[in-house]
């Protein structure tokens, strides 16, 4: 069993992103005279930044526990999925650069009871989580879309092999 948390550096960077974005968009709404349409647009964008700040705080509070039996998130809105119950897995990759460099991954796991766990690659030990999830998906015969298959291959993870067998 292993316990993982999100990297401090990435959390600080996200707090900064959310804080700067919120300040830049909320400040003019409150203090600067603006046209009505712009006011609505800026207010909506500032809400998105506020949501991101909340999400970052939730990530900071979350710990991910990976064991041979399953995966569990500890903290607010904690959930668990036993590996034999894993019914869906999706691995996406995002990057804001044109050459798709310096991006990050987004792993979504779904259990039979509707439980859904979302993990970003800034989690310490993301590789371990990915290997366990891919092995479970392989064992359970989970159908993966082409994007997930290609991203797993690019990440060097094979399906159907238990983490310890690799």
């Amino acid at each position, binding site marked *: 069993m292993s316990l993982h948390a999100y990297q401090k550096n990435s959390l600080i960077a996200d707090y900064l992103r959310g804080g700067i974005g919120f300040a*830049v968009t909320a400040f003019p709404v409150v203090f600067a005279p603006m046209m009505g349409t712009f006011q609505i647009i800026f207010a909506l964008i500032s809400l*998105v930044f506020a949501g991101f700040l909340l999400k970052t705080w939730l990530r900071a509070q979350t710990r991910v526990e990976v064991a041979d039996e399953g995966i569990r998130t500890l903290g607010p809105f904690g959930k668990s999925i036993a590996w034999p119950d894993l019914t869906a897995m999706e691995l996406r*990759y995002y990057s804001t650069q044109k050459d*798709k460099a310096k991006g990050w991954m*987004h792993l979504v796991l779904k259990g039979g009871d509707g439980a859904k766990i979302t993990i970003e690659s800034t989690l310490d030990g993301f590789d371990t989580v990915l290997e366990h999830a891919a092995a479970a998906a392989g064992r359970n015969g989970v159908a993966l879309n082409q994007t997930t298959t290609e991203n797993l291959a690019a990440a060097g993870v094979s399906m159907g092999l238990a983490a310890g067998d690799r």
Partner: protein
Amino acid sequence: MLTYLIRRILIMIPTLIAISIITFVIIQLPPGDYLTTMINEMQSQGENVDQSKIEALRAQYGLDRPMYEQYFLWATGLLRGDYGYSFEYQLPVADVVGDRVFLTFVLNFATILFIWAVAFPIGIYSACNQYSLTDYGLTFVGFIGLATPNFLLALILLYLANIWFGTSIGGLMDPQYLDQPWSMAKALSVLEHLWVPVVVIGTSGTAAMIRRLRANLLDELQKQYVITARAKGLPPFRALMKYPLRMSLNPFIADIGNMLPQVISGSAVVSMVLSLPTTGPMLIGALQSQDMYLAGSFLMFLALLTVIGMFVSDLLLALLDPRIRLGGGANR
């Protein structure tokens, strides 16, 4: 996806600020200002120029202030909906522009829809029937469209409409609706006139898009997963729609950002030929006469459209194809 959205918005904010600064500096770069141009014109016509009046006007329009101060006033004014004052028309920019921004948006949106509506089925057909007679025919038509300058096509259509139908197809509405408030009859008149500039501006874009979609779809159709899907008996239509088409749609979406400024800048010349009441001809006039606030507002509008177009296309691409590009250096 929220993280992606946030990072993308954070890129947009400094981009727009940088564009606004660059736009303002470029407008100010030519020596002199609007008043200098006006004085030169008056002197060339032999008229006397009262220097004290000119100085008073310069002070009134804020042209005697430092550039950064002028920029700050203009930029904050944009947020308040005050786009500045047009020296040439002696009116606020918002009043001068009137319906032009809206009509430009309608024209360019219709053009993009036209490009997609035509390129999409032809591109798919050409890829699925490679080297057939129809494929060659459509490719030929596509190349003709690509090779014909827009303004030439506009002139040919104007000539043909005049010779064959005895009508003028210039303008975006019948003359009696110009400067009139919006009504159903005016909207219908716009729709009636819209097809000509849409076809003229859209033809070259359509041809390019057909070629790109055809090439991308051909690449996908030759991949192993498509062969496997066919070998396992998946109906050809489903085997086409399920993944290959989805993957080959990337250039469609990636082009939204590039297409907006291309279509708008391309439509400026066509707008002059077809006498369209869009932003293009007015922008060119404003740049020639150094009507800085009018030109600056137009350029900011174009930049804003470009940045929003890129933003939308990047979001759609991230939704549609969140894959690693090998060699892209994924940071895990």
